[in-house]
């Protein structure tokens, strides 16, 4: 049947191929990972990389097909790869144009807990000194509704924000009132330990569609050790609050975050089991931020990036075991990176964004009227460094706040597509800029990547995830389920 041509006819061996932009990074013994701006990746033997860049890779090589399908190379005349790359890049960055979504209101610095790693809270009865006023809240709302974003999220932070409950209600109702004309997709979140939450508060949350973001550090002993409060009953209060919140506000209206203290290091399975036991659908294996009391009390230095990665890997392995045995359970930190690796979406996670999420994805209104570029920025301020205080509600207008030199410099200097050490890193498409962290640790927005704990952690997680996907196809399918569902 000579009228049908063999497959070799359909590869342009004669005219060669062109490379499309990609970056690469060694990955274990003799292998490299190639990634492109939209986060797609291919793992190759090192020699194949050589052949690829020397234009000697054979068109019949299976890797050739893979590289072509992943848009790392194209044959002469092909236009679809460029159109698709452009489309995927636009998709990845599309949320940036919407500007600020997350607006944090620090309604009180007071707290009933005295956690040793806490960055900011105060044990004080002095409401006048540490609570936000209605006047300040009104000014903050003026700024909130200047955001061009069609979706607005207002998050109440503390301290323990429930200690200033009347102001929460005030802000919710004022925002709702303004939104009758604004017609934004308006969401509220209260970050609370739940220790002081009453049924009346939950009913209010239910009636106003307010979500609750809570804290659970692990089993009772660990949680209570991390989170001392009078009566040593933080865990019991959390569990009680959790079930009441699920009953009254809604099962999915309450989530929990975990803080990894030095005592957590050997307890990752216990922590995960606790989340499973309390019927959460996932856990966020976070590391401790180097701010506030954490730094002062040396908690932060109690474990370094390497130790934390061990903790993380052990936890992830256990979570994969659970999933393989039929319990759907997500590790959220992995999920953020995996979303960048396995989908066209950017998860818009403030701490792993490029440009940095500081100021443009999130902004913080402190109880005293100061405006910060991020939650970490105000913590840095509590330590005496006010670099990222980008304005004050009483003295600055919207334009002054968001064109603040410190903010713009931070965004520009840390932009990973141009930053030294980042721009040519193959992990960069899955990473983000963190000028506040690097400034806090080194006094420099960019930081020195070879010494950066942030960099070590991100590289460590990304390479580990690649390794897991390469060696365990079942795990890769589980990952796809984690990230594909949104």
């Amino acid at each position, binding site marked *: 049947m000579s*009228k049908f*041509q063999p497959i070799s006819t359909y590869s342009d061996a004669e005219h060669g191929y062109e490379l499309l932009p990609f970056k690469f990074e060694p990955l274990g013994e003799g292998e490299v990972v190639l990634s492109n701006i939209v986060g797609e990746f291919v793992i190759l033997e090192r020699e194949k990389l050589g052949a690829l860049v020397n234009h000697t890779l054979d068109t019949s090589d299976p890797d050739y*097909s893979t590289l072509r399908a992943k848009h790392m190379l194209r044959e002469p005349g092909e236009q*679809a790869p460029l*159109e698709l790359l452009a489309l995927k890049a636009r998709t990845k960055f599309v949320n940036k144009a919407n500007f600020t979504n997350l607006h944090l209101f620090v309604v009180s610095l007071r707290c009933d807990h005295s956690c040793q790693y806490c960055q900011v809270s105060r044990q004080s009865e002095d409401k006048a000194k540490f609570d936000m006023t209605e006047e300040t809240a009104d000014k903050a709302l003026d700024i909130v509704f200047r955001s061009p974003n069609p979706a607005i999220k207002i998050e109440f932070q503390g301290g323990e924000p429930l200690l200033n409950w009347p102001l929460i209600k005030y802000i919710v109702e004022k925002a709702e009132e303004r939104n009758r004309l604004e017609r934004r997709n308006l969401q509220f979140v209260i970050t609370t330990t739940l220790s002081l939450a009453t049924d009346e508060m939950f009913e209010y949350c239910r009636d106003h569609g307010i979500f609750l973001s809570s804290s659970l550090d692990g089993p009772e002993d660990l949680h209570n050790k991390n989170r001392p409060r009078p009566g040593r009953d933080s865990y019991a209060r959390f569990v009680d609050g959790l079930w009441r919140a699920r009953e009254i506000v809604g099962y999915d209206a309450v989530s929990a975050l975990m803080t990894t203290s030095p005592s957590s290091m050997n307890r990752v399975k216990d922590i995960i089991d606790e989340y499973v036991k309390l019927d959460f659908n996932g856990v966020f294996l976070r590391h401790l931020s180097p701010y506030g009391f954490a730094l002062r009390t040396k908690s932060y230095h109690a474990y370094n990036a390497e130790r934390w990665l061990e903790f993380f890997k052990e936890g992830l392995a256990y979570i994969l075991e659970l999933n393989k045995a039929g319990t759907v359970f997500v590790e959220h930190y992995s999920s953020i990176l995996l979303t960048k690796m*396995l989908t066209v979406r950017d998860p818009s996670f403030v701490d792993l964004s490029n440009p940095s999420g500081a100021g443009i994805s999130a902004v913080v209104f402190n109880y005293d009227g100061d405006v910060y570029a991020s939650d970490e920025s105000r913590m840095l301020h509590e330590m005496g460094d006010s670099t990222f205080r980008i304005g004050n509600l009483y003295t600055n207008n919207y334009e002054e706040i968001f064109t603040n030199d410190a903010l713009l410099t931070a965004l520009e200097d840390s932009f990973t597509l141009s930053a030294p050490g980042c721009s040519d890193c193959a992990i960069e498409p899955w990473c983000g800029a963190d000028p506040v962290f690097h400034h806090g640790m080194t006094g420099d927005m960019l930081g020195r990547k070879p010494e950066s704990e942030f960099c070590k952690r991100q590289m460590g997680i990304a390479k580990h995830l690649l390794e897991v996907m390469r060696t365990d196809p079942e795990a890769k399918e589980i990952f*796809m*389920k984690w990230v*594909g569902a949104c």
Partner: protein
Amino acid sequence: MGGRMLKLSGKVIQLSSAVMPVRRQLFLLSTNPHLPVVLRGKRAFLVRGNEVPEGFRHYLAFDSVPENLPAEAACTVIDRTFAYLAENDVIAIGSDGRIRSLYRASSPHNAVLITERCNNYCLMCSQPPKDVDDGWLMDEAMELIRMIPRHTAKIMCITGGEPTIYGEDFISLVGHFKRYLPHTSLHILSNGRRFADREFARKYAAVGHPEVMVGIPVYSSDPARHDYVVQAKGAFDETLRGILNLKEFGQRVEIRVVVHKQTCDGLPALAEFITRNLLFIDQVALMGLEMTGFTRANLDSLWIDPIEYKDKLSEAVRVLSSYRVPVSVYNHPLCLVNPDVEEAYVRSISDWKNEYALECQGCTRKHDCGGFFSSGIQHGYSQSLKPFT
């Protein structure tokens, strides 16, 4: 239905000589002897019993001319293979003495073939392209659309050849459907290459048909392999750009994959490619091979027992499902796919070419099963069938 293949075209037994058509003619059938007289002039009466009312434009009878046929009436005699014909069906009778069923009102599988020309030359084409001037097929389609009683057709398919080969006339056809049969959803089978022309895609979208979808084949994430399967260099690039243009203009697109020896290994990679590059498409159809047309000429390079690729099929379905891409598996016997595919499994083979094999006798799940293309029963099917008990 479901037992034997329906014969959609065949030779008539007898044409009443008085009205031997000089050209192919289309007739809308009626079985209603009480049809208002004013309507009879436009219709053909399908003689089922003894009653043969007067005044119809044409008569269609089985086996022999009815004795009580009105004088001067034109009658065509057909055999019992056409016994399925019914009220509101449309048939064509040609001067060559052939009758063809063009539209069956009771069927969800009405396809209008508007050309046999194509710019692809797929290894497994079920309708091998012919480079002939067959514009009359388009004329016939336009006439058919005017004739189909409104509201009788839920869905119709435009197929070829490559329908878009007509260019502007193809767009007119879609507009014609919209004006005459706005309640009929349309499924267009195209290779999508013509839509790489943005202006063409824009004009197609501008028709504003209320419910139309273009089904476009993508056979591999590897352009070379796709081009090989469709035997046209550069086809993948055009098809992909066509899909992008259609989606940019808000049009619905289905990706269709025929699974065979050249495409089965690449299914998971193709599924990943779709989730990464074409997440916005409306659905994916993974289809078994039809043993007809070019497939039989290329059997060695195409045939693979579906049981051998069932894990790849499962993997592709799982990947697409993970990303919430609606996926359906068509034309596969139920006993040859893994249970995890069942959520995507569809009984789908057009009624007129759907059968079951001898091995299927006694299978307890026959009614859940899609069965086979009639062509498969005739020309070879999996030896791994295993009836459910």
